[in-house]
């Protein structure tokens, strides 16, 4: 125990940074709940949604998309070889959603009324759909992750119950994610004249959905690389590398669709219009789509650990830029004000990211997140416990 305490308390660079961010974050939360949103944000009547919605919520939900993507691969398409990375991916998604809810509690004017959506219905509101998706999918993610916690406390009955409802849970989770990812885009359908035409499209829900799947895959690569480094968990590299190939397919579809959509709406001339929006649009397209496609379509880069990781970083970077473009850049011109996040807004965002990293670390250390696979049995044939027993008895 003493050993543990000294190990935890030994200051390293990142620990010091984390402590500073957390202290500043707590101070900002104190200011927020004593002085209102005006005390900490640069939000205004003309710019009611800022960094917290644009980054913490839109990007947070998107980056949690690895969860449902991998669940679909492993449980619905039964490509079982990806099972070893499913737990850390679900963990990321679950933590992602918890942090999104946390961000909402800071951002909402009346966070104690957040439950109102349960009893006060407005089915015509996309925000109503969003609220329900957040509530239901967080529950599903908790249940999907619960075997890890239950295993830790060795309750066989509960475990077999949860494993028994895995498939329905996964199906519900995929449907809810599909609705949630696309509805975040649908939120902006109602501002056709406020939003810059390079981003406004009636296909926004689809664009949000496709880009979320792409970034979900990129997050799987990103985490596998970092996990391999930090926790000495060597995941089978070819598995992760294959995901890179799918990213090319998804991003190509996304790219084509977005440009065809611009062409069909006679917006192609806007691509060469000298404005800050045009530059940010191209930056988003090049970083998030063109470069990753160029990199990942070459097996030389795809099969290289660092190359794959860097490509995934580009996908994630372009994705973040896209969501911030949609939520901030595209609305600046019509709002009549120029919004830049305040220092406090940035602190809260850093605080949330830091808390996420710490929780992930703790979970990996104290919970069986990285499953042990039975030796000698190809992972494809290893399903739940009694199946394994069958194989063993045959032996």
């Amino acid at each position: 125990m003493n050993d543990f305490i000294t190990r935890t308390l030994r200051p390293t660079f990142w620990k010091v940074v984390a402590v500073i961010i957390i202290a500043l974050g707590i101070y900002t939360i104190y200011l927020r709940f004593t002085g209102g949103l005006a005390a900490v944000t640069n939000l205004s009547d003309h710019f009611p949604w800022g960094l917290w919605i644009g980054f913490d919520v839109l990007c947070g939900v998107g980056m949690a998309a690895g969860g449902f993507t991998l669940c679909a691969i492993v449980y619905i398409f039964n490509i079982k070889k990806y099972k070893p990375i499913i737990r850390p991916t679900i963990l990321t998604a679950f933590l992602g959603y918890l942090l999104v809810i946390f961000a909402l509690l800071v951002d909402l004017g009346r966070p104690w009324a957040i439950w109102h959506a349960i009893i006060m219905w407005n089915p015509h509101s996309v925000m109503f759909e969003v609220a329900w998706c957040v509530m239901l999918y967080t529950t599903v993610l908790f249940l999907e992750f619960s075997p890890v916690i239950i295993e830790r406390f060795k309750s066989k009955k509960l475990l077999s119950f949860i494993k028994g409802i895995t498939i329905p849970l996964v199906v519900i989770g995929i449907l809810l994610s599909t609705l949630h990812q696309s509805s975040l885009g649908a939120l902006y359908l109602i501002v056709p004249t406020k939003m810059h035409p390079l981003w406004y499209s009636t296909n926004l829900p689809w664009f949000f959905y496709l880009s979320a799947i792409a970034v979900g895959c990129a997050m799987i690569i990103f985490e596998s690389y970092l996990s391999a480094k930090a926790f000495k968990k060597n995941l089978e590299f070819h598995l992760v590398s294959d995901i890179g190939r799918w990213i090319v397919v998804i991003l190509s579809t996304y790219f084509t669709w977005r440009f065809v959509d611009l062409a069909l709406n006679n917006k192609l001339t806007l691509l060469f219009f000298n404005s800050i929006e045009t530059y940010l649009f191209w930056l988003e397209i090049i970083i998030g789509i063109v470069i990753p496609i160029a990199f990942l379509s070459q097996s030389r880069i795809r099969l290289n650990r660092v190359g794959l990781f860097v490509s995934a970083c580009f996908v994630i970077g372009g994705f973040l830029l896209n969501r911030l473009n949609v939520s901030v850049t595209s609305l600046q011109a019509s709002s009549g004000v120029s919004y830049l996040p305040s220092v406090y807004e940035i602190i809260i965002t850093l605080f949330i990211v830091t808390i996420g990293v710490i929780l992930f670390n703790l979970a990996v250390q104290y919970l069986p997140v990285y499953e042990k696979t039975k030796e000698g049995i190809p992972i494809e044939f290893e399903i739940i416990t009694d199946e394994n027993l069958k194989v063993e008895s045959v032996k």
Partner: protein
Amino acid sequence: MKKEKAFLIDITECVGCGACYTACKEANNLPETSDDPLRDTLSDKTFTVIEQRGDYYVRQMCKHCFEPTCVSACPVGAFTKIEFGAVLYDESKCLGCRYCMQACPFQIPRYEWGSLNPRVQKCIMCYNRLLEGNIPACAEACPTGATTFGDRDEIIALAKQKIFDNPEKYYNYIYGLNEVGGTSVLYLSPIPFEELGFNTHLLQTALPNFTYEALSKIPTLVSVGGVLLTGFYWLTNRKNEIAREKFLEKTKSQTERSTDNE
């Protein structure tokens, strides 16, 4: 449902006296925010302002749209369009997501940013005065007839009559008649509306249609998606089962062979 009401704001008649501004403050018990109504801006404490645009004055206020974007956007139904066509806000429902502000095509709703229990604030068409049989305070206070209030169909007829009688005085357009599906605040102007800073690029259809079209696909998406996913699961699982049986048979025969050899 009482008859749909509307305001007619005739910019040619407005002299920028600020009577409507003062009356609005009094009727809604709002604190003083500026000594010059022409320099004030809409806020959580100011529901109407007069903006000077060149030689003319343009009054800003909630447009009480026919199909209000805020009503459709609010997740908990805190906004409602009720009798007289007034768009009201119920603070007891609001959770403070501010989607109404983001969604409003006229950028009208204002927020109490400094409050710990913030509300969305805007003109409520003096709903209580309407219930008592009075007209909104601003319309009653206007000394020049720049703001008139009445049944919407009569107001539209009046606007058309004004343009017809004085075609050289008015620009031939009633702003608000069809903007975002029609509003309850109609404007008449002596010059083209874009020259007065009006947003003339608004669509002529109600904006809630856009989100409703997406939302209405949910039932189909969920049912078709659910069936497809379950079907896929069944197919791929069956394939895996067959593969597993073959694998087990193989290992079994191998074990038997090795025991035979012993």
